[in-house]
């Protein structure tokens, strides 16, 4: 893996956005040849989305030939509820960029047949030619998407019941009222994300430090599902200093020493204007 350590949240967000920007532009997407991106929600990627929007508004990055697949969506929450992941993606990303609505895929948590919805989602990914870059986050319990502790590391898109840790973490979005937090969600599986050609995990904040330690310094374990990516050929973990608080000094020093190599991936920052 690459472990890219930036000083704070803003710098980590910017590095991640630059990386995504460069990957899209270097791919040279065009009609019939789309760049497929897997996308997360939550507070961690907000800074990254803001930077991507900035690059778009400056004319440096277009999402015209980008297809997106979100990781998850709550079950039973009305689609226009302010806390649904559809609302999140619209307000924080889609409404600010030029993506074709036909290319923005999010699981429908109100589908009449939830498993059929999940199967159809897997098919859509397959039809799109697989995911080029799957961006994700990590839960405080080490989960990727809603693959809660105990999820099979070969799992596919399916219905999951949320763990208490996750419900507690999400309560802040529902006025702190636990009874209002959805208890089930549709989510891509660990296996689904592992199929992506490249994976980038964003981890910021001290409250995620223990999960990061479990994910990269301990073994592959279905109790800390992000650990599965130790077996993926191309994974980047982008984090801030606070997220490294539970790692061994040796690990941190090693990867910090590689920053000059990592930074070649984002510098120079490409622009579609040059094309």
């Amino acid at each position, binding site marked *: 893996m690459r472990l890219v350590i930036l000083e704070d949240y803003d710098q980590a967000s910017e590095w991640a956005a630059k990386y995504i920007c460069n990957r899209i532009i270097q791919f040279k997407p065009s009609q019939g040849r789309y760049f497929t991106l897997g996308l997360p929600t939550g507070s961690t990627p907000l800074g990254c989305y803001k930077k991507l929007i900035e690059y778009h508004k400056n004319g440096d990055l277009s999402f015209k030939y980008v297809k997106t697949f979100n990781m998850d969506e709550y079950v039973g929450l009305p689609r*226009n509820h302010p806390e649904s992941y559809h609302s999140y993606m619209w307000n924080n990303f889609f409404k600010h960029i030029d993506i074709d609505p036909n290319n923005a895929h999010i699981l429908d948590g109100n589908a009449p047949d939830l498993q059929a919805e999940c199967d159809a989602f897997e098919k859509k990914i397959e039809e799109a030619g697989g995911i080029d870059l799957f961006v994700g986050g990590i839960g405080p319990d080490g989960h990727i998407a809603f693959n809660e502790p105990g999820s099979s590391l070969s799992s596919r898109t399916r219905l999951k019941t949320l763990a208490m840790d996750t419900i507690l973490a999400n309560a802040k979005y529902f006025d702190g009222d636990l009874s209002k937090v959805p208890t089930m969600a549709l989510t891509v599986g660990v296996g689904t994300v592992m199929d992506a050609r490249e994976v980038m995990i964003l981890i910021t904040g001290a409250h995620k430090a223990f999960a990061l330690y479990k994910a990269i310094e301990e073994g592959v374990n279905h109790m800390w599902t992000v650990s599965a990516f130790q077996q993926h050929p191309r994974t980047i973990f982008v984090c801030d200093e606070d997220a490294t608080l539970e790692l061994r000094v040796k690990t941190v020093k090693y990867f910090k020493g590689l920053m000059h190599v990592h930074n070649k991936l984002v510098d120079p920052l490409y622009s579609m204007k040059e094309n």
Partner: protein
Amino acid sequence: MPSNKSVSDAPIFQFTNCRILRNHELQREDLWVREGKILNPEKLFFDEKGSADIQLDCKDSIIAPGFIDVQINGGFGVDFSLATDDFKSGIDLVSQKILSHGVTSFCPTLVTSPPSVYHQILPQISIRNGGAHGAGILGAHLEGPFISKEKKGAHPEHCLRTFEAGAFQDLLATYGTLDCVRIVTLAPEMKRSSEVIHELTKRDICVSLGHSVANLSQAEEAVQHGATFITHLFNAMLPFHHRDPGIVGLLTSDKIPAGRRVFYGMISDGIHTNPAALRIAHRAHPKGLVLVTDAIAGMGLAPGRHTLGQQVVEIDGLNTYIAGTKTLSGSVATMDACVRHFLEATGCSVETALEAASLHPAQLLGIEHKKGTLNYDSDADFLMLNDSLYVQATYIAGEQVWRQDTLGM
């Protein structure tokens, strides 16, 4: 990009680079319009997989709902209380001209007149949507003749009437028809007013208290029977007194039926109401304040003499008096000037000033589900204003119906 709109093929407009008035605040959001209504872009994106056909850069303008003037007696030489042969073209002229003041809907107002005038004029007023031809007509506002002699203001005394004998039937006989009537101003201390107010309210006509010497109890009783508005607060009513606040006391009365709100019109032209009085009213009951122009025929014209119903008035700057007297009679201020003056005099927020001329009159008339806001599915009647609240462009049903010459759109 190819759009796959399943609901409609009508073009979708996206107004960008603007601040829109929504949920009582100016938000940095785009305004989406389709088929004359405000469109929900999130629904468009996810349900229809649709996107904008035409994007318009608003150059950082403020976008607010169109203004609604519920008390306007005429303008540009036209007097709504004068029964002329070309009354219809007169009302058309005014409705077209006030677009430049930001007014997208209005209630043509008739002052106290003889029954013959009502019988001639009212059938010629029809409720209609606005458009390139002019602002929409929501219905007539009949101010009088059932008002108090002591507070007649500029209304002609010989035309004042009571409905003591036949209550509602008297009123109906006087006006001839109530078909296109939206608001009636009357003095609630008059005998049998409760019955009349009740009947009018039943017919969905807004009853307003004004030109009256009613005390607070009489005013409260009128509200209990259905009255919801006060015509130009402070003017033509008893002054506020600390042992009997009169009609003004309705602003803080505890006898208003639950779930109802009393609205009050204010002419904020800087003349009809001292700014301090305007501030007192606003602070006492901010959600009820409705800006009105009470504009007369001389509005938009040069100073001099003009008619107002049966009277002659004289205009000197912003002052309008019954010729030869110091009795105020209507105003020549425009709605956008009233909004600016209100903002300056009260120090309120831009949002508050704009809502006093849009949301509140819409709420008064019970039409806020389609007018007075920029909520999704509302009629797309809106204005582009600069930061000093000067109107740059006016839109009705999503169509630009007026614009300032210097605007680059």
